[in-house]
């Protein structure tokens, strides 16, 4: 059985849970007391992931860290339709490009949320302005896609690029980041919410 080392309110764990749900993969959640316990910084958890980060996925003898790597593995291994991580080289490359974006630039929105909701000590003005810059890039891309009659970040079906980018966009309100200026982001989130087996987490607005 697949085991996900998980904290419910983590956006990075949420994206993995979303894909496990979309692909209907049986799994077990191992609860990590990220807050307030900071269990991810414990000696025991450091043996699981020396980077002291969640999520971590165990599948048999394979252990993976990094949400984006986990999404790519699950799609390649379990998506028999091969739509969530396309084989076509150009689309594959584009998906990987947005996975990189989700793991770096977009994490500024995560930082703002950790500051506002959980009291993490960090530069909140910087986090919010970096998040807005990332949102503008994503919104512009989605505008171009919508002109072409497309809904998703890459190709004509949802991919792990959408899954990787959704959580910290949807949870941005938790970090005091408004979405008034990103109409295309809002259209995309609405479409994402309508995917079969979509599941919300606390802080994802019911109406976007």
């Amino acid at each position: 059985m697949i085991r996900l080392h998980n904290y419910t309110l983590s956006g990075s764990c949420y994206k993995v849970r979303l894909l496990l749900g979309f692909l209907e993969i049986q799994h077990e959640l191992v609860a990590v007391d990220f807050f307030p316990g900071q269990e991810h910084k414990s000696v025991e958890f450091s043996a699981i992931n020396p980077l002291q980060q969640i999520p971590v996925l165990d599948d048999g003898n394979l252990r993976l860290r990094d949400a984006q790597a986990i999404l790519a593995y699950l799609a390649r291994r379990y998506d028999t339709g091969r739509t969530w991580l396309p084989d076509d080289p150009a689309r594959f490359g584009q998906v990987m490009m947005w996975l990189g974006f989700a793991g770096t630039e977009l994490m500024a929105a995560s930082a703002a949320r950790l500051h506002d909701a959980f009291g993490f000590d960090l530069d909140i003005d910087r986090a919010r302005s970096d998040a807005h810059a990332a949102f503008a890039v994503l919104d512009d891309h989605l505008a171009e896609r919508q002109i072409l009659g497309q809904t998703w970040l890459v190709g004509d079906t949802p991919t792990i690029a959408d899954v990787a980018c959704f959580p910290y966009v949807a949870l941005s309100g938790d970090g005091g980041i408004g979405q008034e200026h990103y109409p295309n982001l809002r259209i995309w989130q609405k479409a994402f919410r309508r995917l079969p087996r979509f599941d919300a987490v606390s802080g994802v607005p019911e109406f976007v």
Partner: protein
Amino acid sequence: MTITSDSVALNQWFPVAYDGQVKPGASRDTILLGEPLTLRADASGDLTVQTQTGDTLPTIRAFTLVFTTLGDNPRPMPVIQEFDEPDRRVVNCGSVGVQTSPCRIVENFLDMAHFCFVHTDILGAVDETEVLSYKTRLHEDVDEIWATDCKFFQPAASQSARDASAGQLTDYIYRITSPFSVMLYKTAMGYADRLDAICLFIQPKTETDCIAYMPMALLDDVSSTTSMIDFQQTIFLQDRIILENQRPRLLPISPRSEMPTRADLSSVAYRRWLKDKGLRFGLLLEDAA
């Protein structure tokens, strides 16, 4: 930022940290009622709370939290005996920042009508929305408002109930233990005559920027501590998004500003009690435009 001049607000005990938040030898800056404070932990983790002018404030350690006060004659701390019962699991859920009035946070905690819509499939179900009649009473000896005889159908009333059944009619008792703190007692899974105790203590940094702390004293031999924290945080972050979107952020106190229903009995009692105390902090006193 300046400290409030509201003597009712000043004369309260407020949490400023949860146990273990400031590591031994470390310090942390925070704000209480507009007053910047520095918390310093000694080698054993005990906290000293100081103002910017170097005054050391009194502290009380209780309910997994550290409390302090800026007043000369603070309202006594509430007595919550459940935290002293040896067979209880005392759980510290950390703290969560919420940008709204402390009084809105208290009022949301008292409200049963939102269970079905905000905590769908957990604390309420969309086909069981009725708030049955309940009673409120001012206990003058301790100056607390209690709401009793509360009942609500809940698909998953707690972590242990979620694991055990498909739903239950949960009994609730609410206690407003100060203008800025509230708690509830609710049916504990597997106990006929004892109740779980869940508290909400609020640290108002300003009138519209708060830190909420949620210590619990539960009867549960089954669930892991991590899963109990997870359950409570999931609930509170569902509330948080609603609370931060309520306007005005200050709680309107004029009876003409909103139309309460029967389900709002405890909220009406709370607002009237705040008004009788002469509290201004966190409240919108004039009629809403």
